[in-house]
């Protein structure tokens, strides 16, 4: 009998320690693929290095959101390394970001590429961002940018 009680005591102690460790993990919010995890995350710098040697890469990349579509939250810009920005849109228009998500650390999962953004899209993006007509009219050339155009999931920390 003593053995049984001792064993149960050990199990309870183990689970209590597990619980204490879990409670120290920061709570986060998932958008899109609800099964997405934080495993295998790379930094913005690592993504830039990766795309120096290959055309595209399926990644989970972490960065701080610098801007979110002010109308619906249907796109966002993420700071990769202090200079470069990752442009993100969401798979099948199936989920959006909170309008106030700028400044939040995000993990984005999807196919990353270096893509051209057309003048039409850049103008639309500027309108969404609430830019003045003068700024919108000044957009006349497409740009090449890091992008995940169909993110399958996003974790906001």
């Amino acid at each position, binding site marked *: 009998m003593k053995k049984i*009680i001792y064993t149960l005591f050990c199990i309870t102690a183990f689970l209590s320690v597990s619980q204490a460790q879990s409670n120290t993990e920061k709570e986060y919010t998932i958008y899109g693929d609800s099964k997405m995890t934080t495993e295998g995350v790379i930094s913005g710098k690592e993504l830039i290095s990766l795309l120096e040697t290959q055309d595209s890469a399926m990644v989970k990349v972490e960065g701080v959101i610098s801007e979110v579509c002010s109308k619906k939250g249907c796109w966002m810009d993420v700071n990769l390394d202090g200079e470069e920005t990752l442009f993100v849109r969401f798979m099948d228009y199936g989920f959006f970001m909170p309008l106030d998500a700028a400044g939040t650390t995000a993990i984005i999962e999807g196919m990353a590429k270096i893509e051209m953004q057309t003048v039409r899209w850049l103008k639309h993006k500027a309108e969404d961002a609430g830019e003045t007509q003068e700024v919108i009219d000044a957009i006349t050339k497409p740009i090449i940018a890091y992008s995940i155009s*169909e993110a399958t999931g996003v974790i906001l920390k």
Partner: protein
Amino acid sequence: MRLGLKILVLCIIAYSLFSYQGTTAQNKKESTNYPNKDSELAILMRDLVENTEKVKKQIINGEEIEFFIEFKKLHTAVPTEVNLRDDGLYTAFTESYIYSVKELINTENDKATLYNNMIQSCINCHQQICPGPVKRIRKLKIKK
């Protein structure tokens, strides 16, 4: 084993399992995929996508097609952009879309082509007014 000890053992097991399961569920917080307040028109568009996916399947399976959307709401639903209807462009595209829906409903032959024409009218509008969902809309086309 005495009854008192049996109850004690069961209580310890129950407590252990309950507290562990509760902890794993707290580690991540699930969320709605649409965290912002959506406009009437945005919600109507989502319903329209759902309806269109069903119509696509009905055409592929040779079944009778069924629209449950009230199309007149496209003219009245409150949009995200308050000035959406000001220049008449949205209204013209909407009329063109509704015409293509009527063509699809009223014509018996080559439903797949008429359906793709209807989807193209959605794409034409979105390319001009709200390009975000264009990729999603293209996926609605029937591949021939």
